[in-house]
């Protein structure tokens, strides 16, 4: 019998087109950013601080044009090329209030980067335990309401610990309508009623905005994973 694995990924990505030689990009502090939207339009969880930004996120800059001397000495070349993408050194990144701040070369001769008008700046959550995973459907324990706007799906902890692995959906308060839709979906998934080629069932991929029709359009605004 087919073993169903349910794939989940939190969303965590924002892109900006620089309108000037800017260093600051607002990444939190508004619901349009956290949770924002799926598919590269926000973050399931706000970037906590500079350490979180440096350790758990990747920032890339795609250069609009060829530039000379706009990258610090830690990069392979001091120059960027049109269409080329640079992964920023984490040391160039800080969080100040709600802004991600990217050091320029005059401020950080090693890791800094001088952003130009039209450059595309992308900050993305790096997949790790707790934001991307596939759980066995036959380890589903429950679907239950945590509140009138939160429905939690629990799985037996993959590491055997007492704490469950959980998936929590945030949605509108609609007197149980969304809860029932979510519960119905997972009942079907756990029963192995989905036909596919044997690969994973994409239960909720917020990053790629790949969401099954049963869960799309029912007002889910966020999905958070927690793995014991």
């Amino acid at each position, binding site marked *: 019998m*087919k*073993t169903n*694995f349910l*794939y989940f*990924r939190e969303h965590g990505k924002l892109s900006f087109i620089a309108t000037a030689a800017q260093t600051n990009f607002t990444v939190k502090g508004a619901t349009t950013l956290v949770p924002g939207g799926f598919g590269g339009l926000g973050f399931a969880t706000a970037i906590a601080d500079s350490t979180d930004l440096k350790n758990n996120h*990747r920032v890339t800059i795609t250069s609009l044009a060829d530039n000379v001397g706009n990258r610090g000495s830690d990069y392979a070349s001091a120059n960027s090329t049109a269409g080329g993408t640079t992964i920023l050194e984490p040391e160039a990144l800080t969080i100040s209030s709600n802004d991600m701040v990217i050091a320029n070369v005059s401020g950080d001769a090693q890791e800094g980067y001088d952003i130009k008008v039209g450059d595309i700046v992308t900050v993305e959550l*790096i*997949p*790790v*335990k*707790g*934001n*991307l*995973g*596939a*759980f*066995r459907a036959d*380890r589903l324990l429950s679907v239950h309401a945590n509140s009138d706007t939160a429905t939690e799906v629990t*799985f*037996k902890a*993959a*590491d*055997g*610990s007492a704490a469950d*692995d959980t998936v929590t959906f945030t949605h509108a308060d609609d007197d149980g309508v969304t809860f029932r839709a979510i519960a119905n979906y997972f009942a079907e998934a756990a029963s192995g009623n989905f036909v596919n*080629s*044997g*690969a*994973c069932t994409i239960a909720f*991929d917020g990053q*790629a905005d790949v969401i099954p029709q049963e869960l799309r359009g029912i007002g889910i605004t966020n999905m958070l994973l927690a*793995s014991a």
Partner: protein
Amino acid sequence: MERYLYFVKTTDAPDATQEVALYPTSSVTAIEAASATTTDILLVPRDGSGTTEDKVTLTHADLDHKNVINALVAMINAQKNNDPFVVVADAQNSIFNINGVTAVSIASTD
């Protein structure tokens, strides 16, 4: 029919603990991202403790977790032959049956 997943970590002959392992597919409890280029396969621990999972880590192309997970689950569910022995990653023989996977490691408390 139960299937079994085979892993070899070493490029030379595997002759020590955590260098080679075979796990039943029913032992796979979850598959999770571990870093930008690694994915962990979590398994029921062979020491019987039930608390600290055995873990096989696949190293793969950058941010390619979804493809790796999809391919692994497809192997777990493979129906095309009756061979219960499924080679996932065998570094000794340079066989990596998931596209983009280049290395494997095995961790167990036993």
